[in-house]
């Protein structure tokens, strides 16, 4: 029995079924890399799975039971990171991460600093994020990921704007999470070189899941 399973997913957008009868399962310790051309529906899939978008139909199972994608209990176990990093321009990196994680679980300032150091953001941890470059902001957003203590990560193009070091950072964050039994569903265009046993890939847009 897989930890996460999606069945019978239908999404209708602008005149047509974007996703029609999509089905897949993700066991523990696996990263499902969602592939597909631009406009195939990767972002849509991730938003549906995190309850931000209402699908026409969806059977979602999580840890064995049927859940609604809008259930707060389900939300408490997942972390969603969209196209743009969710940061307050006027807050420093530390404040942003402390808040983003804080509303989910209690966290100390030193944990926050450690997480920022892990993503290479210690140098600008106390600057207002409005003065950061695109890649630096992305790193700050990533810091919340590991700290959140959630089991299921839903990542939409997490390597956008990152330099090469940043890209391997994302890979190692994901791999570490998988080793601890986490699940990742990520839309990533590049081949990031995750070890194959840990990566399934799903091609959306064709209406066929292939894990």
């Amino acid at each position, binding site marked *: 029995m897989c930890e996460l399973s999606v069945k019978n997913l239908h999404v209708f957008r602008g005149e047509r079924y974007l996703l029609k009868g999509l089905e897949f399962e993700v066991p523990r310790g696996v990263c499902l890399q969602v592939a597909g051309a631009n406009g195939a529906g990767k972002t849509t899939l991730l938003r549906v799975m995190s309850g931000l978008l209402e699908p026409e139909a969806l059977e979602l199972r999580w840890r064995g039971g049927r859940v609604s994608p809008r259930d707060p209990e389900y939300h408490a176990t997942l972390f969603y990171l969209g196209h743009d990093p*969710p940061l307050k321009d*006027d807050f420093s990196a530390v404040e942003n991460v402390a*808040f*983003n994680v804080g*509303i989910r679980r209690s966290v100390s300032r030193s944990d926050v600093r450690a997480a920022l150091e892990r993503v290479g953001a210690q140098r600008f941890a106390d600057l207002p994020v409005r003065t950061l470059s695109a890649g630096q902001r992305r790193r700050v957003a990533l810091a919340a990921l590991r700290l959140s*203590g959630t089991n299921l990560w839903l990542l939409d193009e997490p390597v956008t704007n990152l330099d090469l070091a940043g890209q391997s950072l994302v890979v190692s964050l994901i791999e570490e999470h998988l080793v601890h039994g986490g699940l990742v569903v990520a839309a990533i265009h590049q081949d990031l070189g995750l070890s194959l046993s840990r990566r399934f890939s799903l091609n959306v847009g064709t209406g066929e899941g292939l894990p």
Partner: protein
Amino acid sequence: MSAQRTSTMTAVWLVLQRDLRLATRRPAQLIQPLAFFAVVTLLFPLGYTPELSKLRAVAPGVLWVGALLASMLALESLFREDAGDGTLEQFVVSGQPLVALMGAKTAAHWLLTGLPLTLMAPVLAIALGVSVAAMPGILLSLAIGTVSLSLLGAVGAGLTLGVRRGGVLLALLTLPLAVPVLIFGAKATELAIAGESLTGPLYLLGALAVLGVTLAPIAAAAAVRIGLE
């Protein structure tokens, strides 16, 4: 890493604290609604007449229309910014009840707008020729009335989230709904200026605020979910 989940109370507190802290980062913004209130109130005599006796008669209307517009303008930013940078999405998927977080945001809006507007009103009232004796009544009625305005505004702001250029639409949605607050508030102010008892309109204002506190956050949460899709 043991995941000690944040209680709803703590989350509410964090959101409130965050909004207040954000405001202090730009002190200029704290005074913006105030300054707008002042400018509108002072513009009116410019377009009307400088005679205090005449101004005193229109003071309740001018004060309340000014407070209403100032509160509403500040509302625009209440949700729009959080929507723009993805914070609201994080709220929705945070595992916390969205209604509670919306309540916290509304409370923050009142503390940052309604309360300062209330405290500012006596000064403007004096400029319009109102006597000092009327101040307690004016303070009280504005304090209660602005709570309802913040609550109504939160619903409107949530609804217009998904609409680009929603600023004017927000006003169009919210102002008609705010008519009762305006009427009772202006009436209370008028009675206060006339030196009469204002318990009647104050009770009504209070009733509106209670109704708002119970219903508005629910509507705002529903609105935000839809606005973000």
